[in-house]
C-alpha cells in the first residue's frame, strides 16, 4: 500500500488569536503553530494501515518554509517520507487552488493507493480540500470516516464506516480512494525519542511550482476564484441565566421561559 497523508500547519488551538481590524487578517506573530489536530488522526490511520498491510507512508503539506515542522512531526511519528510544497506562487491559495496543487503533488509521488486527510483544518474549517483532491484525482472520496473495517490491497477494495448525523454508514469502495477521518477513528501516537532523532536526520525535499506538472495560472491567489473579504469575531453571546429556588418552582419557571422562547410548544 502506498499511502499519502495531506497535512496542514495551523495556529495553536490554545492560542488567543487577534484579528487585524485594518486588513482583516489574523495576527499570528508569536503564536505557536501545530499540526492540524484532525491531520494527526490521518497520520495515525496511515501508520496503522501500513503496520497491517505493509507499504509506505508519504506526507505532504503546502505552506511556508516553517511548515516543515509538521512534516518532521509526521516523520517522528513514523512516516517514511515527507515533501514540502513551498513557493511564493502557491501563496494566497483558496481551497480550489490548494487542492489542485496537492493533487498534482500526489500525481508526482505516483502509484498511490490511498490518500488520507483530516476531515477539516481547524483554522479555515471548510472541509473542502480533501474532497476536492479526490475530484481532481478522479478517485472515490470517503468522508468523515470513523473506522476502517477492512482493506484488501490485492483486490483493491476498502470498507469504511462514515460518521453521519444520527448514524453510521458503511461504504465499500474501490482503491485508489481518498478518505477524510474524524477524531473517533484512533488515538494518535506520540513520537518516540528514536523517531524524533530519525526525523531530524531525514531530508525533506521542497517542491516548487516548477517541480510539479501544474498549470501556473491555477496556483495561489491568481488561481483562486474565492478570497477572504473580511474576518470578524462572532458577536459575544449573552451569558446564560441561572434559575434559583425550590425545584418545583424553578421547573415551572423554566417551562414558562422555554414556552416564551418557543422551544416548547
Amino acid at each position, binding site marked *: 500500500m502506498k499511502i499519502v497523508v495531506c497535512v496542514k500547519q495551523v495556529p495553536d488551538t490554545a492560542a488567543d488569536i487577534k484579528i487585524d481590524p485594518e486588513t482583516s487578517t489574523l495576527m499570528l506573530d508569536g503564536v505557536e503553530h501545530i499540526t492540524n489536530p484532525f491531520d494527526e488522526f490521518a497520520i495515525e490511520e496511515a501508520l496503522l494501515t501500513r503496520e497491517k498491510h505493509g507499504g509506505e507512508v508519504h506526507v505532504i503539506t503546502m505552506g511556508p518554509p516553517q511548515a516543515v*515542522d509538521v512534516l*518532521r*512531526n509526521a516523520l*517522528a511519528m513514523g512516516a517514511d517520507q515527507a515533501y514540502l510544497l513551498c513557493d511564493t506562487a502557491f501563496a494566497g491559495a483558496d481551497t480550489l487552488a490548494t487542492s489542485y496543487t496537492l493533487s498534482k503533488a500526489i500525481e508526482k509521488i505516483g502509484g498511490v493507493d490511498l490518500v488520507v486527510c483530516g476531515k477539516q483544518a481547524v483554522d479555515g474549517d471548510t472541509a473542502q480540500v480533501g474532497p476536492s483532491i479526490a475530484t481532481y484525482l478522479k478517485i472515490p472520496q470517503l468522508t468523515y470516516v470513523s473506522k476502517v473495517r477492512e482493506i484488501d490491497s490485492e483486490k483493491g477494495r476498502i470498507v469504511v464506516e462514515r460518521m453521519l448525523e444520527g448514524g453510521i454508514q458503511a461504504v465499500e469502495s474501490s482503491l485508489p480512494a481518498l478518505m477524510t477521518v474524524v477524531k473517533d477513528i484512533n488515538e494518535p501516537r*506520540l*513520537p*518516540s*525519542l*528514536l*523517531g*524524533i*532523532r530519525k*526525523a*531530524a536526520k531525514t531530508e525533506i525535499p521542497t517542491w516548487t511550482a516548477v517541480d510539479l506538472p501544474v498549470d501556473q495560472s491555477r496556483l495561489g491567489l491568481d488561481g483562486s476564484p474565492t478570497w477572504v473579504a473580511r474576518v470578524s469575531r462572532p458577536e459575544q453571546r449573552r451569558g446564560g441565566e441561572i434559575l434559583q429556588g425550590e425545584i418545583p418552582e424553578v421547573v415551572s419557571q423554566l417551562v414558562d421561559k422555554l414556552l416564551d422562547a418557543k422551544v416548547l410548544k
Partner: protein
Amino acid sequence: MALDFDLDEELESIRKMVRTFAEKEIAPVAEELDEKEEFSIKLTQRMGELGLFGPFVSEEHGGSDIGYLGYIIATEEIARIDGSQAATLAAGNSLGIYPIYTFGNEEQKREWLPDLCAGKKLASFGLTEPNAGSDAGASKTTAVLDKDTWVINGSKIFITNSSSEISAICIVQAVTGKRPDGRNELSCILVPNGTPGFTAKTMHKKMVWRSSNTGELFFNDCRVPKENLLGKQGEGFHQMLQTLDGGRLSIAAMGLGGAQGAYELAMKYAHEREQFGRPIGSFQVNAFKLADMYTDIEMARLLLYKATWLADNKRPFTKESAMAKLVCSEIYHRVVNQSVQLHGGYGLMKEYAVERHYRNQKLLDIGEGTSEVQRIVIARNIGVPGDPLG
C-alpha cells in the same frame, strides 16, 4: 561567536513530546498513585516505549542516543508534573543503565541493556547503607570470592527501583578487600533480583516520591558468578563517583522541572484567585514572588544546561554538576515554598498538585549527595585550602 542559547528543533520536539505525555498520561493519575503509594509499571513501560530510558546509550544496545541535554529536558518535563515518575526515570537511567553501559563488558551490556532501555526491566544502584550515607566509602557489605563465585553479605537502604515487580538487577557496591593504604577496596557486582540470599523489601510510609519504588536490600550468603563483577576489582569507588556525577544532572533536572511546575501552578492560581475584589497576582507582594520564582528558574536552567553541555562535549563536569544539583534543588525549595504560600490554605490540600511538589522537593536536598556534600565537592574543586572534610 560561539555562544548559542537556542535549543535545536530536535530538542524542542523532545520537550514537546515528553510534556504531552506527562500532561496526558501522568497528570491524571499522579495524585492517586501518590496517595496509595503505588508504583506504576504501566507508566514505567510507557516511558520505555517512548524511548526515555537509555538516552545516552547507543542504538545498537537499545538506547536512543539523544545525549545528555535531551535526557535532562525529558526528566525536567516529567518532574514538572510528578516527582515520583521522574525519580523512576532518573534513577533508572543514571544509576541503573549508566554504570552497566559505561563499565560493563559487552556480554553484560547485551544481556541487560535492551530490556532496561525498553522500560521492561529496571536496574538499581546499591550504594547507601544504614551506616554509610554521605560517607559512601564506609560500606559494610562484603563480597568474598569463593572459587568462581562472589559471596555477598550485608544490607543496603533507600535504593530506588530495587524492589518492584520489574526490578531485575542491582549493581551492588561491596568491600572486596583492603587497599595498600589500609582503606577498603570497593567493587561493583551485578546481582540479579531473585538470586537466592538476596531479599528486596519495598519501603513504605515515605513523605516523598511515594509512587516511586524504594527498597531495602539484604544479602545473606548471596552467591553470583565471578563474571558478574562490573569492570575491574577495586574500581567500585571511582565507578560510583563517576556515576553520581551524571546522576546529579538528572537530580538537578528534577529540581528544575519541579520548580517550573510549582511556578506555573502559582501563576495560574494568581490569575484565578480573587481577594479584595481583584486577582491576588495583581498585588505587588505576590507579583514580586512570581518575578523572583521566574528569575530563579532561569538561573537554575542556565547553570544546569551548561553543566549538561559540558557532559555532552565530554569535558569534566564534576564541579558544575554539583553546583547545578545544589542550585536546582535549593531553587525548587524557594519556588515551591512561595507557590504554596500563594495558594494559601488550598496549597495544604492533597487535591492541589503543589502540595505534592512541596513534599517531593525535600528529597532533592538529600538524595544523591546532600546539599552539604555538594558544597564539599564544589569546595574541593575550586582550590580552598585543606580539605573541607578533613
